[in-house]
Structures are given as C-alpha cells and as structure tokens.
C-alpha cells in the first residue's frame, strides 16, 4: 500500500514539474493562432476608426483657430508625489485632475499629459495653475502660479512643467510647445 502511495506521489511531483506549463492545451494550436490573428485584425480596424474619430472630434469641437491645449509634465529627475493639478482659464476652472500612481509614474518617466483642450478667442488670457502633493521629504505642498498667455491664429499648445518643490524655487513654469 505504502509503495503504491509513494509511486503515486513521486509521479505526481514529476507531473507537477513537467506538466504544469502545459495546462489548457486542449484547444488546437491552429485554432488558437487563427483566432488570435482575427483579434489582431479587428484591433487594427478599431484603431483606424479611433484615429479617424479623434481627427473628426478635433476638427468639429476644437478648430485650430480657437483651440487651446494644456499639457502637464514633470521636470526630469523629480521625485515628489503629485496629488492633483487644477487649471483655471480666465478665472474659470477648466480642469481638475487627481493622479493615480501609474499616471504619476508615467509623468516621471517623461510622459506628457494633455490635461485640457478647449476653445478661446485670439488675444491675451489669464492662466492659473495649482499643484498639490507631497515633497520627497514627505511634507505637503500646494503651489499656485498665474500666467498671461497669448492666443494667436492656429492651435495654442501650452506646457505646464512641474518641478523643484523646494523653498525659493519656481515650482510651476510654462513651456511653449
């Protein structure tokens, strides 16, 4: 009896080591592959629709004459934790964003977030940016900066760069893209 048990267990261990990776191999390989290729094709179709719709949306809702887009980025090497960014344009709140860990990580790696896109007349406009979060040392910070921006003919791309939360340093600066 014990011999039988031992054989079963030893066989089981071998099966564990060598059979585990082969779980769920029942569906024919060709069928899996064929379906995978069809899924890839439909992804291509849907991506193409997405691209068309995004251009249509931009043309319809944000024509270049009046378009303004605000982008947020974090200066290279910054380690502070950004909790939120608020944007006011001509005194009206237009964007408020709370950051997830993934979003913050994407910003720290060099990604740029389009936080707002809208329409304004040509001429001067007041832009107010508020950023809050925690410094690398763990203390809370909240910074406000006000800017004047000019909208000419053509889309206006405004970059908001968040950096250096230390005392005396400029936390929020603008960058023209």
């Amino acid at each position, binding site marked *: 009896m014990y011999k039988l048990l031992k054989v079963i267990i030893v066989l089981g261990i071998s099966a564990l080591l060598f059979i585990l990776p082969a779980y769920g191999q029942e569906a024919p390989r060709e069928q899996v592959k064929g*379906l995978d290729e069809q*899924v890839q094709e439909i992804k291509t179709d849907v991506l193409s629709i997405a691209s068309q719709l995004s251009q249509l949306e931009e043309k319809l809702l944000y024509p270049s004459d009046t378009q303004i887009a605000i982008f947020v980025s974090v200066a290279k090497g910054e380690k502070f934790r950004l909790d939120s960014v608020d944007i006011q344009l001509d005194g009206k709140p237009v964007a408020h964003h709370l950051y997830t860990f993934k979003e913050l990580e994407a910003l720290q790696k060099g990604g740029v977030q389009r936080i707002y896109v809208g329409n304004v007349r040509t001429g001067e406009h007041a832009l107010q940016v508020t950023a809050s979060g925690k410094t690398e040392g763990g203390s809370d910070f909240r910074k406000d900066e006000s800017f004047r921006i000019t909208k000419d003919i053509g889309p206006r791309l405004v970059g908001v760069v968040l950096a250096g939360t230390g005392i005396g340093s400029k936390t929020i600066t603008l960058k023209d893209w």
Partner: protein
Amino acid sequence: MSRFILILACLLLATPSLAANPYTSNGLKDVFFGETLYHAFQEDWFQAIARLDTELGQYRRLDEPGLDTLSYHINQAQFGVGDFELGYRMHLRAGRAMTAVIEGNVEEPVRNEAIYRLARLYFQKDQPEDAFHALERIRGGVPAAIRDDLEFLRGQILLANGRFPEAARAFKDLQKAGSLEGFAGYNLGIALMKEGKEQDGRESLDRTGQILSDTPATLAIRDKSNLVLGYKLLEENAGENARLVLERVRLSGPFSNRALLGSGWADASQGRFERALVPWSILAEREVTDPAVQEALLAVPYAYGKLNVHGRAAVLYGKALESFGKEVDKLGASIKSVKEGKFLQALSREELKQDSDWVVRLRSLPEAPETHYLLQLMASHDFQESLKNYLDLNELQKKLDVWERDLDAFEDIIRERRAYYEPLLPEIDRAFRQLDSQMRLRLEQRERIQKRLNAMLTAPRPDYLATGEERIISENIGRMEQALAANGGTPDETKERINRLQGVLLWNISTEYDQRLTDTFRNQRDLNEVMDRLKKQYNAFVRTRQAATQSYEGYDDLISRERNRIASARENVKVLMACQGNMLETMAVNELARRRERLEKFQITARFAIADSYDRASKAQTEKSVGK
C-alpha cells in the same frame, strides 16, 4: 503566494517592459510624442498606438517632414509603435513596423536594433528559426544599450534551435552583464546540460543559485535554478544534496511550494521522515488549490505512517480526504458555473480591473466558484493569451458603443449649428460684400497716394501738397485772370497784384514743401497702421465666416462612413468574443476536469491509506496489549 504565481507568469512570458524611458534620452521636442509616451508608460496601449499612428500619419504627409518636431524622435517613434503593438499583442503589425524600419533608409545601428526587435518578436511567437535567420542579418555596429540584450536573445534563440554549444558560448560571454544577473547563468547551465556537459551545467546552476541580490527578477531566477538543480539531484537519489539546494529557495517566492515538496522528498528518500514533516507541514497549510499543496496533504500522513504513528496518519488522511472532497465539489461547481457562462461574466467585472492583482482577487469573490482555479489556469500561455484577447475584445466593444453615441452627439451639434448659422449668414454676407467694396475702393486710393508720394521723392511736386485753401485761392486767381482777359485786358496794377498773390502762394507752397512732405509721409504711416488693423479684422472675419460654414458642412459623408465601420466592427467583435469566450470556457472546463480527475484519484488513494493506517494502528495496539 498567489501574487508570486502571477509574477512568475509575467517573468516567463515577458512583454515589452518600459521600466525606463528609452524614447526621449536626448529630451522631448514633440509634445504629441510625449503624450503618446504618457499612455504607453501606463500600458494603455490602445491610446498610445492610436495617437502615435495619427502623429506618424500626419508626419508622413508633410512636404518637409524635417521641419516637424517629430523628426527629432522619428526613429524612436517608429520603434515605439512596434513596441506598443507588441504590448497590445498585435504581433503581425509589430513585425511589419520593424520590417519597415529595417528596409527603410536608416543608419546601421538603427537597422540592427530593428532586427533585434524583430527577432525578439519571432522568438516570443515561438518561431525560433525565423528569429535565428533574422539575427543573421545583423551587420556592423549595434547600439550599446541593447548589446547585452541582443547577445542574450541570441543565446536563447540558439538554445531553442538546438545549437547548444553556440548557445553556451553566448551565455558564457554574458556572465558579467549586470542587467542579466542570474538569467545568463541559469541559461548557461541549461545549455551546457543539453550539450551533454552535465557537470558543468550543474555547476553553473549551482553558482546562479547562490547569487546575492535584492532584485525580484534575479531572486526568482535564483530560486528557479535551485529548483531545477534540486529536482535533478532528487531524481538521482542524491537526497542530501537535493535538500541543501532546495532549501536555498525562498519560502515566499513563486517556486516555494514545489521546493518545499521536493525538500520533504529529499529527506524522505534518506528515511528522515521526521525532517520531511517540517517542509511538508508548512506546505500543507497553504492555498489548497495549488497542486503541490494537495500532494503535501497526502505526503504528511505518509511520513507519519513511516514513523509508525498510524493513528495520526489515519486522522490526517481523513483530513486530506475531506479537503479533497471539498475541492472536488468546488471543481464540480466551477465546471458547472463555467458552462453556465458565469466565468466570462466574472472576467468582465469592471471593478476588478482597477486592481493589478485582480486575478488573485477574483478567487476571493463569494459565490463565484468558476474563478477559484483561475490562477492555475493562468499558468498556461495559451490560456493567458486567450484571456487577454477576450478582455481586449470586451474593451473594444465598450469603445465602439461609446463612439456610436459620440457620433449621435456630433450629429446633434452639427444640426444645431446649421439651424443657428444658416438663417444668419445671407444677411451677414450681404453686409460684408458692401463693406468689402468700400474697403477695396479706399485701398486703391491709398495705393495711388502711396505711388504719387514715392514719385515725389525723386521729382518734387510742391503743387501736389498745396492745402485745400491754397487750391481754392489758386483757382480763384485763375478765374479772375480769365474774367479780366475776357473783359478786354487786365490793367497793369491789377496784373501786378495778381502776380503778387500768385507769388505769395507759390512761395508758401515751395518753402513749406519739405515740411509738408514729411508730414504727409507721417500721415501715410499712420494710415498704414490703420489699414493693417483693418486687414487683420478683415482676415479674422473671413476666417470666422469660413469656420462658421465649416462647423456644420462636410461631415455627413465622414460620419456616415465611420458609423458603418463601427457597426461592422461591432458585429465582428461580437462574433470573435463569442468564439474566444467559447475557447476559454473549453480550456477552463478541460483543465478543471483534469484537476478533478486527479483529486478523485487522490481520494481513492487516501481512502485505502486510511483503512491501511487504521489496520496498522489497531494491529500495533493489539501487539501492545498482547505484549503486556
């Protein structure tokens, strides 16, 4: 523990990792490329590809693309699109993207990097021969950043193609590559053993199994080396050495369950059942859906039996039987639930996707038996890929639904705009035409004056700058002269007075000419400023007028076309989801049935073992009584 299984799955089936940013090492110049990266770094591949496709499309349509800011990142963008497509499991398109770079007019290192990526793609898609032939095309310099990775890939491809000595050489050269710590050693060990150099291979695995590191990936590969080496030794009855090696595996790592099981068998093979009980007892307390844990539930009472503690063994076999019974029921319920379609419903639960451990969390859902064995199912590459495809299709379906509603909203906007502008525009156009003709007239006048003034710089004409009053006086004098002449001649005194008046007039005009010319030019400049403002206003009006029409005209065909495409894509997604879902259910049911079958065999074994243990226990009791 469950988390580690996931980590292991990721380790074995690695997708492109964007831990660092390889795309903007020289700074970001194009904001839209930066936006693409923002999505890619969050592994939001769909958005990343959609945006980058649009950007690249626009870039390629430019007459002078070199002037566009994307030209600073064009190589990275072309690689990026391939990487993102790979991340989104669009291998066919990713392959085409890499091939386009290889066949394009690019520098040698860029071309070689593209070949490397293409080879990696082939290797991941289980096409090692294609991967090998791709690497053969590498000529000349390779970017320093990928040099080690390229050699490592070469080694893996050689290994997969059965060219073990060459693979071993490739891995041997990488022993000092810090980024591949552990991985090169493990693969070297495997390559050497496959080559027939068993002892050298084991030594390499042994060295890898003792690496000091705090990197999760290195620690995992260290554990894997120890596990492979330990089981090799165990198969050869080298129990003591096997135990020593298996004990190096971390108790909390993804390989710990199998290491604990093997460690127990290493002791048991030497008859040290008391020591074997230590790892097995730890293992028996762990998550019972794990096959190693289920084995341990039988191994623990087996050890007690060997130690002649038959009563305890009988009790533990009973517990194992009870546990197997519960799991068999759970598996039965899972199979039933999967067949009823609940498995796919559970996978689509939105709230779970917010959590990176959602697969683990699924198992803890009450009344969702279909998901209890999901983690084990995830160990299969095909299942994982099918599951990801199913989830992607689910996302596509949601996007298409939203877009259809967006198109409805767009049409509403267009309708509203048309209703607002169309009655207004004819009157505005009429007023504009009137103003336009007036403006053109004034512009012509200004042009004439400008030309005359310019001519006066070289040929002075003081009479042109006479004031209105001077002109009237001059005309009056002229009329007086004519009248006097008509009346039979002018008296000398009158003639003299007329000459004097003409002289005064001419004197004033001539002496003040320079000042008058300067003043006229100043006035002209002021007029130009006004005219510039007018032109700007005119252009702004024209643009606004055009924008008004463009805000509602020319969209109908586009919207209608996209609506048809969305409808067709929705239909395709629906069909594919059904096929993919069916395939997942079949895989799940087959696997769950296999697991149930295995447990049912264990149940039989446990039942026999209980009876046997009770027999032995009562026999021992009887012998004890007789002895007394």
